[in-house]
């Protein structure tokens, strides 16, 4: 798989500068207000800064150096969170820049009619409208998204897909879509433009990777609400400490009420800044991982929905099985040896360039050591397959060898007053029942035997499907085959269910049935007839090689056109949710240690007994509070790599995944800050900064 994303380094000078500038631009309250947690942090920063200036002019509520230190680290908390977001965006922006390179304004040859010799006027590509016809010749860049109406050409699509091998684009069929910014290498095409300027695939991709059009996904919105709720709760819990401590000072006659600086420090330590600061970075990074997998999501919602998918519809051919059937066995009838049958079968297939034909030649060589012969030197005449005869074969030295479907051969034999043996019939039926395709071989009017053609299930599919099953995803194989064949392949591949003799309507109905039962359905497709089903599916992956209609209907486009990519996409979707969930848990469980650091520091002046809560034995109240604030800021930085990379997803059952993540992030979140805060406190005392 080619990945273009990996080629951009963060240390790329331009990216780095842009990131640093963004970190400060993102301090804009109008930007931060969208993230309630970080907005509260910013207010806290401003407040402590004002308190610092007040202290500077001699009216400080705490030591000036202490207020300054708290204020600086609160600003760092904010900047670190901005950095995480800018960094995630930076990676996307770097990709966008390279994509924009492909959007050079090219001159297009606008045709008046779909005819190579029609009069052409040269206009800028950016002025092309829907349904304009343009001529693209070898060496030209295709000026916009469109469909080939005339011609066939090889096209270099590496600017979009990162794949350097050229692809063939031709009019009609499922290979007719071309993308603006790609280059014609040979021959020529007449393209009907299908997208107005600014709406092309390339434009969409650029907007997507830049994050400009990034909307919050449903789970992200729900999480935002929860985080805002927690922020409010902790805001109340800390702000009410002012009256509570005023009362306590009055009641005991000692100590002093808690200061604003300490309240702000406590508040910001308690609110879920870790997840709040990394939330948007996680979302952007999730999209980015999709792009690294060479999948373009047309909405963030699709990425998230991918994690929820529990039914996967997979086309049999090309996804589960290799594209073509292969000969796997020669079954002679009574009176013929397998050797003879194989020899005849090979002879009849020497000139047959279909994959089935090739596989017969290969099998005969492999099983019976019959070497491939040159059909020309034998003086044989090849009889190609026609729709009329539904047979192919060879005439050689008076031998007439034919192979074909059973009914065609039966008719052929009967016409020559031959008999179609019962044995051959039963072999044919046997093969069909087992899901194979029987090809009967006949010489003259004598039936020699049957070749078994079988679907060959791709290596490792069984394991992948059982992995999916463990993840709770049901796999359904879609095929045009008859139910018997379908059942056999389904059993071999280990899918949960299959749909045989599928038509586009049946596919659509199947998806609707699953959805009505509450399932979320994912499918891949490339043809125009897949479009309705793609539009209905919750997660629809269109192949980049597919038609424009399919690409429009899907919400994800796989640039590699690899149908098994769905499995990867599901993993990325799950990873995205898991990263959010685990960091939320981590963030909240951090609070326990922070209480133990800050409460004794804030209140042991009023109630000296509360010093007993200082179980970390932090050196001074100021150092305790500062250590908690510093820890809170640094943990964001420490978790940026995790946020960008995502929590590792393993296909265990839900309960096992929860157990694992709770131990790592729940228990870890409880324990880690105790050590972290203590270590920072020790460092501060060592440096004598307290």
């Amino acid at each position, binding site marked *: 798989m080619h990945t273009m994303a990996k080629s951009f380094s963060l240390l790329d000078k331009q990216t780095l500068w842009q990131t640093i500038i963004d970190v400060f631009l993102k301090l804009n309250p109008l930007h931060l207000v969208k993230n309630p947690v970080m907005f509260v942090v910013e207010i806290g920063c401003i407040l402590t800064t004002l308190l610092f200036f007040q202290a500077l002019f001699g009216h400080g509520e705490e030591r000036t150096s202490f207020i300054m230190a708290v204020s600086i680290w609160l600003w760092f908390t904010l900047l670190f969170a901005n950095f995480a977001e800018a960094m995630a965006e930076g990676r996307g922006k770097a990709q966008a820049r390279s994509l924009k390179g492909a959007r050079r304004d090219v001159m297009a040859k606008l045709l008046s009619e779909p005819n190579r010799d029609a009069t052409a006027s040269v206009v800028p590509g950016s002025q092309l409208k829907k349904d304009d016809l343009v001529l693209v010749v070898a060496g030209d860049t295709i000026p916009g998204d469109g469909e080939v109406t005339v011609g066939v050409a090889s096209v270099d699509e590496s600017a979009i897909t990162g794949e350097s091998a050229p692809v063939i684009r031709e009019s009609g069929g499922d290979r007719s879509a071309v993308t603006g910014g790609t280059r014609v290498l040979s021959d020529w095409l007449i393209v009907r433009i299908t997208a107005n300027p600014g709406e092309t695939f390339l434009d969409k991709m650029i907007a997507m990777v830049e994050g400009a059009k990034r909307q919050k996904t*449903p*789970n992200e*919105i*729900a*999480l935002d*609400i*929860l985080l805002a*709720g*927690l922020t*409010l*709760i*902790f805001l*109340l819990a*800390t702000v*009410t*400490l002012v*009256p*509570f401590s*005023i*009362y*306590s000072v009055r*009641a*005991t006659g000692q100590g002093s009420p808690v200061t604003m600086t300490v309240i702000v420090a*406590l508040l910001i330590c*308690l609110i879920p800044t870790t997840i709040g600061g990394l939330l948007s970075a996680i979302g952007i990074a999730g999209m980015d991982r999709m792009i690294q997998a060479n999948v373009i999501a047309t909405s963030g919602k699709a990425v998230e929905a991918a994690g*929820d998918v529990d039914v996967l519809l997979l086309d049999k051919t090309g996804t589960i099985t290799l594209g073509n059937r292969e000969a796997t066995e020669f079954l002679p009838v009574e009176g013929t040896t397998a050797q003879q049958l194989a020899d005849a079968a090979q002879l009849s297939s020497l000139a047959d360039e279909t994959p089935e034909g090739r596989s017969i030649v290969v099998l005969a060589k492999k099983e019976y050591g019959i070497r491939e012969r040159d059909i020309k030197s034998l003086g044989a005449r090849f009889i190609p397959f026609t729709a009329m005869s539904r047979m192919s074969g060879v005439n050689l030295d008076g031998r007439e060898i034919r192979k074909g479907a059973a009914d065609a051969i039966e008719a052929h034999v009967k016409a020559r007053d031959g008999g179609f043996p019962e044995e051959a019939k039963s072999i044919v039926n046997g093969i069909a029942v087992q899901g194979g395709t029987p090809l009967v071989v006949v010489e003259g009017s004598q039936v020699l035997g049957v070749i078994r053609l079988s679907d060959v299930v791709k290596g490792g599919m069984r394991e992948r499907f059982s992995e999916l099953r463990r*993840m*709770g*995803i*049901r796999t359904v194989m879609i095929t045009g085959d008859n139910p018997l064949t379908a059942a056999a392949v389904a059993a071999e591949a280990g899918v949960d269910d299959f749909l045989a003799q599928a038509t586009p309507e049946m596919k659509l109905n199947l998806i609707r049935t699953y959805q*009505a039962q*509450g*399932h979320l359905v994912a499918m891949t497709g490339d043809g125009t007839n897949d479009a309705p089903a793609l539009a209905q599916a919750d997660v629809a992956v269109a192949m980049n090689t597919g038609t424009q209609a399919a690409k429009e209907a899907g919400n994800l486009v796989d640039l590699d056109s690899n149908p098994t990519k769905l499995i990867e996409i599901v993993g990325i979707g*799950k*990873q*995205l*949710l*898991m990263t959010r*969930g*685990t960091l*939320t848990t981590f963030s*909240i*469980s951090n609070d*326990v240690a922070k*209480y133990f650091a800050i*409460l004794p520091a804030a*209140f042991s002046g009023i*109630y*000296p*007994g*509360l010093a007993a*809560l200082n179980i970390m034995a932090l050196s001074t109240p100021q150092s305790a509070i500062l250590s908690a604030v510093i820890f809170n800021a640094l943990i964001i930085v420490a978790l940026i790599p995790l946020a960008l990379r995502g929590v590792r997803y393993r296909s265990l*059952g*839900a*309960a096992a*995944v*929860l157990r694992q*993540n*709770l131990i790592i992030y*729940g228990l870890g979140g409880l324990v880690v800050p105790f050590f972290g805060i203590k270590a920072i406190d020790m460092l501060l005392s060592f440096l004598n900064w307290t």
Partner: protein
Amino acid sequence: MTANGILQIALYFIVLIAAAVPLGRYMARVYSGEPVFLSRLAGHMERWIYRFCRINGAQEMTWKTYAGGLFLFNLAGIITLYLLQRLQGFLPLNPHGFPAVPPDLAFNTAVSFVTNTNWQAYGGETTMSFFTQMTGLAVQNFASAASGMAVLMAFIRGVKRTLSQTIGNVWVDLTRSVIYILLPLSLIMALLLVSQGVVQTLESPARVQLLENTMDEGGHTVSGQEIPLGPAASQVAIKQLGTNGGGFFNANSAHPLENPTPLSNFMEMLAILLIPAALCITFGRMLKDSKQGWALLAAMMVILIPLLGVCLFNEQAGNISFWQMNIDQTASSLQSGGNMEGKEVRLGVANSALWAIVTTAASNGSVNAMHDSFTPLGGLAPLLLMQLGEIIFGGVGSGLYGMLMFVLITVFVAGLMVGRTPEYLGKKIEAFEVKMASLVILIPATVVLIGTAIAVVINPGLVGISNAGPHGFSELLYAFSSAANNNGSAFAGLNANTIFYNATLGCSMLIGRFCLMIPVLAAAGSLARKKHVPAGAGTLPTHTPLFVLFLVAVIMLVGALTFIPALALGPIAEHLTWIR
């Protein structure tokens, strides 16, 4: 902790579960409209009520209609109860000749009983006529309990139904709760209490000759005593069963005529947790997944038992100041030992601690000992149980729906952690549900903290505090925690019958009740409209020990962390100062 005490507590929980299971199954049948053994008798009554009130029991309601009906019903309750108190001087059954209850106290009491709080800023035997007690307070004991159960049923239907706009009929839920469940149970309970000596009479106060004459403040000799009587047993039965907690007498269940014997004490404690525990079973039964109900019950127990341990341990350990004076506080055959201040000798330490825990776990609030006299940490446990939002058993119905809101939050975070849009019992938990659940958690916490914050800085608040230092602060925090979470128990010590406290605590109770019912019903409506997602291997199971533990962790982190700073300045500071 003594072996005897632990044995009694163990027996309590065994009997509780043994009784909760059949009751839970019975309630599931009642709410599902299936026939039960009371159907013949109660069915007639039910149909008669519908005919009389022109209710069409088959009519389904949207969540808004349901909520509207419920609020009108409760508003009518508040107005009626207010008027009954104000007019009791003109009404019959007033042998003491009590005058009208002052407006602020009448408002506070009306709100208190309708919201199932039963905060009592008055003394029953010196304020309320029998008529007010019987037709006002006792009636609202039934009505408020039924309201809580109705909302729970609406929520259960929300989870159960698919693509439905409606969540049941509020009048049917209210009626069934009362006549199939609360009335029969109260009848049995009242008879059992009478057998133990709880009074049930409309007689005037009894006058008795004192064994030894005494002097009053004016120096006059007093030779007789007036002992107030009344229809107590009938009211005590529903006060316990409906997690109301409003005592007939001022001393509540510490009063010998309200709770005379250890057996009556045991039965009353049992009645406190009976319906809340049984509703967990009902929940599982109605959703055809019993394990879900057991999981919730288990989560409640996992929080309850350790806090009971904290309370019992500290109470039995006794008063530190007494130890310093070399006063023997160990349990022996001659004395119960431990901190006996404010406790009834006939009940002892273990039964007082157990009562304090179950009455605050459930939003009951009746007391058999003075919580104000508990050790700081012994008092912390009941305080924390209220601050968690009255969801550890909690009020009838309201406790479980509150717990279910925490479950939604837990499911949401846990669901994300396993990489799937969270779902609970086949329903996807999305932004709206998270918003509603957050509100349910946020609102009571806000009321407690802001209420306490106002009271500690302004004079009308400060004058009510009778103890100095952190203990005074605990009293205030306790009062607002109790009111906002609809518990109703008092730390005592606080003089709450002032205009300031009657008004602020009254509002706290209203917000704590109805501002939570709205989001719960809204969430029920939203869930009912959703599709049912079939469970698969990728679905997070919500009945496993792992999930229960995570739920407990979320409750403790979200529910308890909010109050840690406040608790640090109250009971924790008191305890740490005391042991120094």
